[in-house]
C-alpha cells in the first residue's frame, strides 16, 4: 500500500511554478501493478521517483512500508571506469549483501546479461544495449516489493527484449510493478490499474484500459485547446502521439513523409509497419484496425511501407519516383537477391512473415 496525503509537487521555471501534483490524496491498493500515463512533461517520471522515495513532494507526505527498486534499466548509476563486475558488486554492497549473496548475484547477472568477456571490462566500453542488459539483469537480481520501471522495456535487440519481458513477467509473480511507458501494449500486458497525470490532477482508474482511454481523450482535448481552432495539418497516431504536420510525424518515426501520406489517404487501417493509424483532425475518426490481411507474399520495406506483393510495391515506387526509371520486375528481382536491398531506392525489403 502506498499512501499519498495532500501531496503537492512543483518545479520553478523562470519564477513560475509548474505543478505536477496539486494537493493530491490517494491510496494505491495492495497487490496491483500500476501503469502511469500522461503527456510529455506531465511529470510521470518525477511521480514515479517520488513513489520510489528518491524524489520528494514540495509539501504533503508519501508513506509506504514496502521496499522499492531503483528506477529499473537505468544505466546512470554505473561508473564508467569500473568493470561490469565491480559495478554489480558496488550495488550489492549498498544493499548490505554478504560475500555469499554477492557471488550468487554476480553469477545471475552475468548469465542474464549475456555480455561475455565485457563483464570484466570497463563500462565505458559498453554499447548502450550492453549497459541496459547489465542494469536490467541487476534489477532482477534483487528482491523488492515494488519494481520501478521507467520506459525501459524497449531497450536492446529483439531477442533480448523477449527475454527481458519473459523474465519480468516471471518476476512480477512475486512482486508488483510501477511502470511509466508510452507503449500502450506494454501497459496493457503488465499493469492492472492506471493513473493519468494531467495538469496537476491525478486520475485513478481501476482498469488500465480505462486509463488508456482517458489518456487518449485528454490527448485530443489538449491538442484542440492548444490550437484553439482545429488544425487540419495535425496528425494523430494510435500510440497517443500528436504531431503538427506530416513532416514532423515522418521525422519522428524515421519514415518518409510519403508513407504517412499513404496511411492518411487509406484512412482505414494502414500501410504502416508497427500497425499505426494516422488521421487528420476534422476527418471522420476511423477505428483502429490491425493489419491482418497478409500472406506469404506480403513484404515490407525498410522505409516502413507494407505491400501485398512485389507487383504492388513496384507500381507504388514507379508512381512515386518517375525519374528513377524503375523497371517492372525491379522489386521481384531485388527479393531474389540475398540482401534484398534495392540500391536504386535505397530500401531493403523483407517478407512480413519473417516477423511473425
Amino acid at each position, binding site marked *: 500500500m502506498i499512501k499519498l496525503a495532500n501531496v503537492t509537487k512543483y518545479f520553478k521555471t523562470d519564477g513560475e511554478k509548474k505543478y505536477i501534483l496539486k494537493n493530491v490524496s490517494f491510496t494505491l491498493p495492495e497487490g496491483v501493478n500500476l501503469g502511469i500515463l500522461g503527456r510529455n512533461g506531465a511529470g510521470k517520471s518525477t511521480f514515479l521517483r517520488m513513489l520510489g522515495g528518491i524524489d520528494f513532494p514540495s509539501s504533503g507526505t508519501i508513506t509506504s512500508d514496502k*521496499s522499492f527498486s531503483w528506477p529499473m534499466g537505468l544505466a546512470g548509476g554505473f561508473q564508467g571506469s569500473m568493470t561490469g563486475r565491480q559495478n554489480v558488486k558496488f550495488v550489492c554492497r549498498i544493499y548490505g549483501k554478504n560475500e555469499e549473496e554477492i557471488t550468487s548475484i554476480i553469477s545471475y547477472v552475468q548469465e542474464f546479461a549475456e555480455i561475455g568477456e565485457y563483464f570484466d571490462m570497463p563500462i565505458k566500453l559498453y554499447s548502450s544495449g550492453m549497459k541496459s542488459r547489465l542494469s536490467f539483469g541487476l534489477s532482477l537480481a534483487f528482491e523488492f516489493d515494488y519494481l520501478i520501471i521507467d520506459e525501459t522495456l524497449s531497450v536492446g535487440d529483439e531477442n533480448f527484449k523477449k527475454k527481458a519481458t519473459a523474465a519480468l513477467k516471471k518476476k512480477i509473480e512475486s512482486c508488483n510493478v510501477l511502470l511509466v511507458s508510452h507503449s500502450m501494449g506494454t501497459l496493457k500486458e503488465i499493469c492492472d490499474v492506471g493513473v493519468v497525470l494531467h495538469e496537476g490532477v491525478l486520475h485513478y482508474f481501476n482498469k488500465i484500459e480505462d486509463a488508456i482511454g482517458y489518456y487518449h481523450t485528454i490527448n485530443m482535448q489538449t491538442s484542440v485547446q492548444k490550437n484553439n481552432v482545429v488544425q487540419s495539418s495535425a496528425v494523430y497516431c494510435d500510440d497517443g502521439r500528436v504531431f503538427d504536420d506530416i513532416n514532423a510525424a515522418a521525422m519522428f518515426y524515421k519514415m518518409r513523409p510519403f508513407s504517412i501520406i499513404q496511411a492518411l489517404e487509406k484512412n482505414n487501417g494502414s500501410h504502416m509497419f508497427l500497425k499505426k493509424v494516422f488521421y487528420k483532425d476534422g476527418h471522420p475518426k476511423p477505428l483502429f484496425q490491425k493489419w491482418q490481411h497478409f500472406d506469404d507474399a506480403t513484404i515490407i520495406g525498410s522505409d516502413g511501407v507494407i505491400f501485398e506483393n512485389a507487383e504492388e510495391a513496384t507500381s507504388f515506387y514507379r508512381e512515386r519516383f518517375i525519374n528513377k526509371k524503375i523497371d517492372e520486375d525491379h522489386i521481384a528481382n531485388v527479393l531474389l537477391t540475398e540482401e534484398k536491398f534495392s540500391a536504386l531506392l535505397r530500401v531493403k525489403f523483407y517478407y512480413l512473415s519473417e516477423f511473425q
Partner: protein
Amino acid sequence: MTKRTSLSIFSSVVFALFLREVQTRFGTKRLGYFWAILDPLSKIIVFSLVKAALMDRSMPGVDYPVFLATGFLTFGFFQAFMNGSMNSFDANRALFVYKQVKPIDAIVSRFCLEFLVMSVAIMVFVGFGMYIGLDVLPKDLSMVLLAVLWLGVFAFGVGVLFAVLASFYETFAKVIGFLGTPLFFLSGLLYTVESLPPVAREIVLYNPVIHFIEMIHGNYFLVLDTQYVDYQYMMYWTIIPLFVGLYFYIKSEKKILAS
C-alpha cells in the same frame, strides 16, 4: 527484504562508496598511487632547492625538507578534501537513484579516502626519510597525532558546510577554488609564524589553517614551539562550521537529492 538499521545502511553505503572511489582513483590509472607521493615530493624538492639557492639560513636545527613534508602532506589532505567535498554531490548524483545513498555518505567516504591517502603518504615519507638518514621522528608524537586528527575534524566540518553552500551557490565553489593558492602561501607551510614581522603575524593568524600547521610543526621539531597556536580559535573553527554545516545539510538534504 529484511530491515536494516540506519547505522548499518550508512556504514555499508560509505564502505561501498569508499571502495568505489579507491577503484576509480587508483584502479585504472596505476599512477594514482604514485601521484599521492609524487605531488608532495616534487613540491618538497622544489622549495628545498629554492631555499638552498637563496642561501637562506633561517631555522637552524630543522631539516627543511622534513619541515616542508609535514606541512605539505597535512595541508594537501585539507585542500584535496575541500575540493573533493564540494563536488562530491555532483560527482555522485547518479547514485542517488539508490535510495540508501545519501549525499552526506559521499562526503564521509571521500573524507575517509583522503585521510587514508594522507596517512599512507606520511608513512611512506617517514620510512623513506629514516632510510636516507633524515631526522624524521617527532618531538611529541601524541600531540602531532592529536593535531592531525583535529585537522581532520576541522576539515570535515568545513567540508560539509562548503559542500552544502556550493550546492546552492555555484559561484561559491569557484571562489573557494581561487582562495586555494593564497591559502597555500598563508598557511605557514614554508615558514614559521615566528619568522614573520609582527604585522604579518597578526594577519596570518586569522587563518585557522596556520594554527593547525603551527601545532604540527611546533610538536614535531625540537627547536620550534607552539606559542602562536590559539587552541580556542581552532575550537571555534572546528565546532561552528561542523554544526552549522550539519544543520544546513539536514535542512536541505531532500533539496540536494531532488535538484
